[in-house]
């Protein structure tokens, strides 16, 4: 297994050399340091980015002693070499050390990363609010659609309308069940209002489904619906007789 994997890795490596980089080659990690020794412009920036996300310690242990040694030396701070390519980790000192070693790829500017980071930090709160409002208003936004479906489904009781009604019931109920998870996502100053609106919207959806059931005649609201549960009347008098024998 190891052999084949190595072969695979080798082929991957060859691919990298031929500038046809397969980003799905996970097995390439052990060779990263080798890659690093090659001129940086051969390396695709994208590959580096991918490699950052595909950290895997266990695989690394299986490979050749030299590589292993290299890796082992930095095992504790495995993220270090990934930071190599991104350039902004949490540990500033590490970055400083590594960045010094590696030259930036062609067309890479340190500034761009920082710029985006700063701008997103500014809009974060806005986005969170927007996102929260999206979540909160989601159920309410479905109502016109539900109305349309209700109208389309008609009042006859057949499999299709029943499925529709089932879905209409299912969605809000599901939302109620996973309401904790949803509330985690809702953050920001208006969280309480949003939560309330979210719940309210789901209630409206539920009410709509109930109304649909009502129009379809599925709700036991009439006396006729309880008729089957009525006990027969008790007989108070007994009478026999007939024509004279």
């Amino acid at each position, binding site marked *: 297994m190891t052999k084949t994997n190595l072969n695979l890795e080798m082929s991957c490596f060859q691919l990298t050399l031929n500038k046809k980089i397969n980003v*799905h080659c996970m097995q390439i990690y052990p060779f990263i340091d080798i890659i690093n020794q090659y001129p940086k412009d051969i390396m695709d920036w994208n590959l580096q980015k991918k490699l950052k996300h595909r950290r895997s310690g266990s695989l690394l242990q299986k490979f050749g002693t030299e590589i292993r040694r290299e890796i082992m030396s930095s095992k504790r701070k495995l993220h270090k070499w990934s930071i190599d390519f991104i350039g902004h980790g949490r540990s500033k000192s590490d970055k400083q050390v590594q960045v010094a070693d590696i030259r930036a790829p062609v067309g890479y500017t340190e500034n761009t990363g920082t710029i985006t980071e700063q701008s997103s930090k500014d809009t974060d709160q806005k986005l969170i609010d927007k996102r929260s409002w999206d979540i909160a208003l989601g159920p309410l936004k479905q109502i016109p659609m539900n109305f349309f479906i209700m109208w389309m489904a008609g009042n006859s009781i057949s499999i299709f309308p029943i499925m529709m009604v089932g879905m209409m019931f299912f969605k809000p109920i599901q939302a109620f069940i996973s309401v904790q998870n949803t509330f985690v996502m809702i953050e920001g100053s208006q969280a309480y209002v949003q939560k309330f609106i979210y719940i309210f919207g789901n209630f409206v959806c539920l009410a709509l489904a109930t109304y649909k059931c009502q129009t379809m005649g599925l709700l036991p609201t009439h006396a006729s619906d309880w008729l089957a549960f009525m006990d*027969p009347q008790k007989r*108070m*008098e007994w*009478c*026999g*007789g007939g024509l*004279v024998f």
Partner: protein
Amino acid sequence: MCGCKMTMTGKYLLFLSFLQSLLLSFGLYEDQIGKFDWHQQYVGKIKDVFWDQSFHAGKRLLVSSEKHVLASVHSHNGSLAWRKVLEEGTRGQIDKTLHSGNVLITINGGGRFVRKWNPGNGVADWDISLPGSKNDRADIVQCSKDLVAVMVQEAVLGLETRSGKQKWSIALPQSNQVVFTHLALSGTNLFVIGQSYGQQITIVTVDVDGVIKSTQSVTAPWLTSNTKCVVSSGGFLVCYRHEDQNLLTLNLADGQTFKSTSLQILGLEADDGVTIETQKKADEPYIFLRMRKDHIALLEIASHGVKLKKDLPNICAAQIASLDAQSMLFTLERLTGELKMRAYDLNTGGEMAELYQTITYLPQHGFPHTMEVLLFKKRDLRLGCRFAILSEDFSMQLVLKTGKIAWRREEALAYVLSVEMIDLPVSENQAKYEDEFGSHRDDIATMYMKRFKTQFSQLKTYIQQQLQKLQGHRHHHHDIEAMAESGSEDEDEELTRDEFNLNKLIILVTGAGKIYGVRSTNGHIEWEHFFPDLTPFNRYGQQKLLLYVQRTTAHFPNPPQCTIVGKHKATGNGLLFSFNPISGEAVDTPSTGQMLNFRIVQAGMLGELDDHFLRGILLLDPNDQVHVFPEKCSSVLKRTYRSQFLFVADRDTGFINGYRTLPLQKTFSMEKVWTVNLHKKQQTITQVVGKRPLEQVHSQGRVLGDRSVLYKYLNPNLVVVVTEGEIQEQSQKGPSSFINLYLLDSVTGHMVFHCSHRRAKGPVNLVHSENWVLYSYFSQKSRRHEMAVLELYEGKDQSNSSAFSSFSSPRQPLVLRQSYIMPLYISTMATTITEKGITSKQLIFALRLGGLLALPKALLDPRRPLLPTQETMEEGTIPYIPELPVNAEAIINYNQSLFNVQGVYTSPAGLESTSLVLAYGLDLYFTRIQPSKMFDVLKEDFDYFFISVVLLGMFVVTIVTQKLSARRALSRAWK
């Protein structure tokens, strides 16, 4: 116009599709024939029996019965070779049957029809109609090989035997008083005997060529219509005068006066019911005088008087048969459990020992009264005989081999009056289970032990059953033939309830005074009882024998109990017999029945059960005293007398009286609380129909199209009184008849509803169930049979949902009604009944054509709309079409025609979907029907194999795909 047409077409299409869906369920597959149903054919009480002497000599018996049936019976097994059921009413009655050699001729309907039948296949060779007699007296004799003479009231006719062509005809001298009763042949002369009661006897002598030779009169001032007269062979008229117990004889050829012989002189003691029996076959002038059921005297008649040839005490049936000019007298003597048959040579008077035999004979057949002997010479030239025995209980038995009854036909089953179907008892194991819950006094340990024991025994029987099954399959094939030979008794397994309680024991009470317990699985008789003294109540031709189920099988360990209420033949007082319907054993009453010392006017059942779950019977005597049977139930009545009522409708007076019970010191009396006068002068009460007392109604109302509820008016005390009458209408020429229906609360006498049909005639067939009444009548106006239905509703609110009391009954119910055209003539009808009353109802009509037609109640629903709307479609009502559809698939007895159906009894089975049906009359037919299809059981053609293969396949596929997908996921993970 066009739109209207469209809607009409649409309506019909809708209706047709609805019908299709309704009626498809009734169909029966060919291989299901005889699977759930059985059919038994009877002929009724046999009047005449002959040994077939034509092609099937000795192999068949020809019988004619008082139920207007002519039939041929196979002598080897008693099955019918053919059967001809003649018309109902007087038109079809068989006055006389003539059989000799190859000729079988009947006269029906008082000489209206003379028919010659082919004895081999029952085909009518010819049929002629004659004017008929006013008093239904007709006679026939065979003069020669190709001439028969027929006497009707006005004339004597000579008919050619081959073709029925009239050779000659003589008008008989008519006067007001003379009634021609007998036609006799002596030598070459025909004697026509006319009786003028209180005056004289007229004898008209006719030549075989149709020439009146002489007419003479003999004074007979003692002659009444009750005088029994016969013409014996040899040309003697013999009359028995009851008043002074004299036999009067007259020689028809030359006699001028009657010669009288006292029975005392002959040494005979006469009872009340002395009858004279002639001998068809003997040439000598012998007659039998029957003194009692078991005493016969053989008399010889000569011109100087009557001579006692042989006194036959203890003999209940006798016959003279001759072979090769040797006349023999055969006698039957009944001893306990057997019959002794002796034969005497008439010339020497000595007994013929070679023909003597004893035959095992069950006591429940009563006394034999007729025997029909076939004498023959065996191969070794010794004499042999076969004979048929007709007994008091209408049964016919045949002795083929010496000393053994080959078969019997229980013809009493053609006279069924009351039917009940009783649940079979649960199996022994099940009974133990029930026992466990029955006692409440046990502590936990004993209950646990009991439970353990029961379950252990259950396991044991299960294993035993499985073992038996394994072994049984091997033996089975050998046993089939053996079983077929040993007869029906041995093959029947013991009486235990089946899984779905579909098999019952049918209790049949017959007008012959015989009661049967019959298995519903195959129609075999489980037990039988014969009460010679029991007769039905008979009022205006309506025969009634009441059968009450006092305790059902449900109350283990108390055995079930039924009681028959009838009339004692001699005294007219009540006669009761209680028995265990499963075993047939008598309970509480002696095995011959308990005779009461009062006449029964009406009877009913108590509403409440006693401590042992027994429901008492109330018997009303003519002095308004009430008797409770059994006596021990009086305590129940004492407790609940306030809620116990009785009503009596008197056809003679037109009054209906309602009574309440009042306790006296020890007895009970009835106090009249209401009276309804239905004016006897204008109309007569023909029927009073209540509901079945223990009917279950599941749904208390009816759901309408707008989802509101129309509550049913379910008055358990409601009875329907039908009256018929005639009124003289001015516009009409003749009187026009009418029918009135009164719906009466039998507790309070409150008239709930009344309706009248003008120009309509009975007979009214009526079904009263739940909240509806369905009845049929003949509409004279449109000359067709019509069906009308009434449905009663309380309205949209229910006044009291928990109890129904007639004293606080809801306001006048809403009555919906509709009528329909019944395209066929029906003889009776009934409705299905199911365990819980959830299944929709079906109506079963017994058609005169021989079918049993089952129609859903939805077709006879007064809410059927004239114009269907959205709302009515929502409600599920079928648009109104006056004609009721008769679909061949709705005939539940497929091609097994039933004749003269007197009633249809339905009973619930353990399955809610199923109702058991028994049609009785001349035939018995049992089947089961599912009015709403079989919704609670898989159909028997359900493909278990296919389903299990599919399931198994799916299971395998699931496992395989799971494995595959796991592998794939892994390999994908490695990529």
